[in-house]
């Protein structure tokens, strides 16, 4: 098992890829996942985070097998 990290829209372009796979480290948060997956860039201020497709804060715990997504403000409709 591992953590799937996904990036969408302008954030995908900024990171330069759509997805990463990370080994779970047992004490992860969403913000910590960003720091390990994209160490060269600070997490953007206005980023939205979803864990297993539900909105979550940066300090929300992440477990092995979770899917964590980072994306900019949504603009549908």
């Amino acid at each position, binding site marked *: 098992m591992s953590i799937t990290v996904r990036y969408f829209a302008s954030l995908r372009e900024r990171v330069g890829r759509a997805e990463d796979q990370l080994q779970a480290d047992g004490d992860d948060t969403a913000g910590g996942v960003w720091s390990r997956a994209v160490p060269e860039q600070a997490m953007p201020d206005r980023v939205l985070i979803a864990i297993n497709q539900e909105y979550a804060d940066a300090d929300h715990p992440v477990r092995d097998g979770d899917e964590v997504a980072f*994306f900019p403000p*949504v*603009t549908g*409709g």
Partner: protein
Amino acid sequence: MAVSLHPAAFDPWATLTAHQAQLPPGSFGATAVFVGTMRDFNEGDDVRAMTLEHYPGMTEKHLEGIVAEARERWGLDDCLIAHRVGPIEPGEPIVLTAVWSAHRKAAFEACRYLMEELKHRAPFWKRETLKDGADRWVEKNTEG
């Protein structure tokens, strides 16, 4: 289905008629409908085309959640959300929300709720191509 995503152009009025035909005649007294259509202008620039990206799975899940909230809050007979994804051109419908209820107040309020919640919560992102060929991500929703 109360929620549908359309990778190609769709006719919101045909979608609406087909959905309403499934409801028992006489069971509702009010229908409120909103259709959003792509403009050829935004933020003062001429827009030639647009691409709608989404998060497959999460988008449908949240649209279904919004429909369930509206149904419970207003005691609706039924709701419908249809939304385009992928490449889209000016003049094409982007989104349809519709509500069927016993009376008009619930229908109007719930239809507005569906649209506002969709715009704030459903993971869609617009990328515009301007007339001069430049591409840009749409950074925020219009005021309403």
